[in-house]
């Protein structure tokens, strides 16, 4: 067991070293991609500022609280984006054009191979914006920052990234049956944008979907409201129970998605003859 972990870790280090070489090789491209992401996040914040020129609070939320939710939402998204971006290729074309073969042939975990093939530097834009906004809110003192909350903060970010990855993996795995599942993955992924704002503003149906079916509310808005010390819709605001539910959801979704992925690889047939 320990031996296996060591081996995978060594392989991953080699791959990360490759990634840094790529970044250094094309510094301008890297900076431009980063700048692009940075700018689009910044516009979302500017929107909130302009709106709050007109209103004192949005259904009881202050500007700073909304900025925290917005920023917090970026961190698990950025982590997932950084490490597992290659899943998109499985959905769009690796299964379709038969390039998935190469993962089947190597004596390594297939999922590990898929995600370790690429790190997505653009994700640093999301992580950077998210971190800046969260730190800013901490310095303003609107976030509860005792030991328990800080520990759960990291737990929640991790669980949130797992939920992202699980949703991506689930929809990408459909490609084993449909040949390409990119469109479905894209629709599911875009749902995450709903959870950048308090979900009470949406109609009941939408709220139900993003809380329980494609549970992005548990990645962003619900844990964020806990860290703000605001009582969430489950009345668990003070207790951290929402992070516990988030972890359970992350575990369940991960196991379902991974099982589907393994089932998919077992029925995978290469393209061509």
């Amino acid at each position, binding site marked *: 067991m320990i031996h296996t972990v060591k081996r995978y870790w060594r392989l991953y280090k080699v791959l990360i070293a490759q990634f840094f070489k790529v970044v250094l090789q094309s510094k301008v491209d890297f900076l431009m991609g980063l700048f692009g992401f940075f700018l689009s996040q910044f*516009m979302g914040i500017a929107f909130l500022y302009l709106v709050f020129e007109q209103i004192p609070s949005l259904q009881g939320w202050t500007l700073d609280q909304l900025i925290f939710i917005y920023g917090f939402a970026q961190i698990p998204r950025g982590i997932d984006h950084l490490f597992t971006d290659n899943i998109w290729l499985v959905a769009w074309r690796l299964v379709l054009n038969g390039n998935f073969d190469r993962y089947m042939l190597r004596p390594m975990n297939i999922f590990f191979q898929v995600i370790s093939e690429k790190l997505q530097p653009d994700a640093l834009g999301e992580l950077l914006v998210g971190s800046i906004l969260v730190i800013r809110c901490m310095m303003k003192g609107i976030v509860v920052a005792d030991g328990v909350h800080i520990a759960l903060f990291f737990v929640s970010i991790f669980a949130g990234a797992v939920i992202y990855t699980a949703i991506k993996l689930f929809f990408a795995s459909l490609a084993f049956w449909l040949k390409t599942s990119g469109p479905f993955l894209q629709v599911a992924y875009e*749902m995450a944008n709903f959870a950048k704002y308090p979900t009470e503003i949406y109609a009941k149906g939408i709220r139900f979907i993003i809380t329980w079916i494609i549970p992005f509310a548990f990645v962003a808005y619900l844990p964020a409201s806990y860290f703000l010390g605001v009582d969430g819709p489950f009345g668990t605001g003070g207790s951290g129970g929402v992070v516990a539910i988030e972890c359970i959801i992350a575990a369940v979704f991960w196991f379902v998605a991974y099982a589907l992925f393994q089932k998919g690889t077992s029925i995978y047939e290469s393209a061509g003859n």
Partner: protein
Amino acid sequence: MKKKLRIYFPFASNELKRQMAYKGAFYLFIFISLFSSFIQYFLWMAIYGSSGNGILGNLTRNEMIVYVFMTYVTSSMVMITISDWVSMDVVEGMIAMNLIKPIDYRISLISRAMGQAVYRFLVPGIFIWIGLEIYKVKTLGMQVTGIGSILLYLLSCIMSFLICVLFDFCFGMVAFFTTYIFGMLMAKEALISFLTGQLIPLSFFPGVVQKVFDFLPFSSMVYTPVMIYLGKYNSSELCFVLARQAAWVVILYVLGSIIWKQVTKRLVVLGG
């Protein structure tokens, strides 16, 4: 004129046919971009609900609903990206073929874009538009938009389309200097969604910033036609904004020609 039409019409009709061929992907993108319209819709409803004031940024709650969805219809119709065609042609060296043919490269691109615009008008645009009108009358109790406003709106949209593609042509010239324009495209899209009023009506900006926007082409791209549709301009303002759009068409056309001349002088195409 007739000859020109005969030359460039196939560019438009081919693009229209091409778009028809990839319906699946296209419906999906409609669906996804409607997501963001609905997020905006709910967000604005909450914002109006939290405000004691019925009018924000000169728009009533009902006008804001029309604004959100008409902005979507308008921008999907007029904001055609031609810069990635330019960049693809440059990267693949196809640009050389386009230079030796007896056609104007820019007009051929604009014709292609026009085919796409027609398609987008037919497929999502008109249905959402009609749906919105029905919703407006049945649920919001507003008047149907008059035929005069619709005609002026369409006239303004045509100029918006020209402003967008002519601007994007200038932007696409960047492709001659760098092969990686993905990051720039993202930055451009983010900035444009802000400056055109797609994200938030320009009337929400502080007065000084609005003055600056008056001197930029972006406000003429989406904001102007939607405001015409909402009937927000009196007749003298109407003449002014339409004239301003026409002026931008001319300016960007001339600017594009100048940049194009400069750029093709230093063009190096690899391979035979």
